[in-house]
């Protein structure tokens, strides 16, 4: 099993510009320290219609109670509105890039001793005698004995047979090579909604870890 940079195509080059936007890093850094409810605020605002902060403050009274001084929630609201104010297509790309950047940040916390090159983005995984997948994985952990292939989705609707098959294929090919590879699907959505989406999928999913909005901090738990 070996990891390789994905060959950049036109889509990837455009998307790389989004990934490098400072707003993505700012939002991801804020969300890495956030509570479930603060992350829910980000999800709602980035996919909402209203772009006035006061409406959102009213919708989340526990975060913005008078005198609460919740500076992180305020900063998350500000960053999320900056995403929401972009056009529909661009905001969709920003949301995806933010979930990927957040995932990378949390995985780095779970692997504090790992060098920067141990956790990468947009990488393919190659196995001898197996045709390589076209699509790279969003995030990979490239540590002997603790490797992982991670895909990231904004919402439960992004869970598809293709995504489940690709993750499971990587895991089983690794096992065929006597290597351990965790397959992880990170979804910035409620586990309840993920369960609904998964229930009607016939693609293999038992070997894939599902991480939802409520369990994102599991990514930062020390690797076992």
């Amino acid at each position, binding site marked *: 099993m070996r990891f390789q940079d994905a060959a950049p195509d036109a889509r990837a080059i455009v998307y790389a510009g989004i990934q490098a936007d400072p707003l993505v890093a700012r939002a991801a850094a804020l969300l890495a320290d956030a509570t*479930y*409810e603060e992350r*829910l605020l980000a*999800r*709602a605002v980035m*996919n*909402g*219609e*209203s772009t*006035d902060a*006061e*409406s959102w403050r*009213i*919708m*989340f*009274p*526990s975060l913005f*109670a008078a005198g609460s001084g919740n500076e992180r929630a305020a900063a998350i609201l500000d960053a999320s509105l900056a995403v929401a104010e972009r056009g*529909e297509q661009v905001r969709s790309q920003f949301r995806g890039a933010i979930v990927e950047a957040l995932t990378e940040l949390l995985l780095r916390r779970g692997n504090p001793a790992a060098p920067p090159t141990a956790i990468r983005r947009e990488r393919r995984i190659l196995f001898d005698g197996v045709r390589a997948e076209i699509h790279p994985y969003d995030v990979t952990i490239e540590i002997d004995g603790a490797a992982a292939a991670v895909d990231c989705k*904004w*919402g*439960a*609707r992004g869970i598809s047979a293709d995504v489940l098959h690709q993750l499971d294929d990587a895991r089983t090919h690794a096992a065929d090579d006597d290597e351990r590879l965790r397959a992880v699907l990170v979804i910035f*959505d*409620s*586990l*309840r*909604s993920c*369960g*609904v*989406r998964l*229930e*009607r999928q016939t693609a293999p999913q038992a070997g894939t870890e599902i991480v939802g*909005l*409520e369990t994102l901090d599991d990514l930062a738990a020390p690797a076992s």
Partner: protein
Amino acid sequence: MPPVESSPAIPETIGAAIDDARDALETLVTLGEEVEDEWQYVQDLADAWRDRLDVVEADRSNDALLPEQGGAVQRVCAEAGLIEDPHRAIDWLSTFPQVVLAAIGERP
């Protein structure tokens, strides 16, 4: 911030809040059903969240809400009513109930 026009009154109990949330959820369902490929997912998602709201209502229907909690439910129901895109409606079918539940002190 002026009150949202044509919104229902601010709910004062959990039961009233859940009633308002159910109505808003149905509006999202109707819109989301326009995405034919996702019709079944829309039904499944709506059922799952209705079930969750039903549980909360059964446990706490008569519990009083703080004014800011009721105001939050009123506002998020109004926000759901602003959605016009069927694809965004599907995403909101998941987001909306979570915001309602958070507003009334419940987990998803």
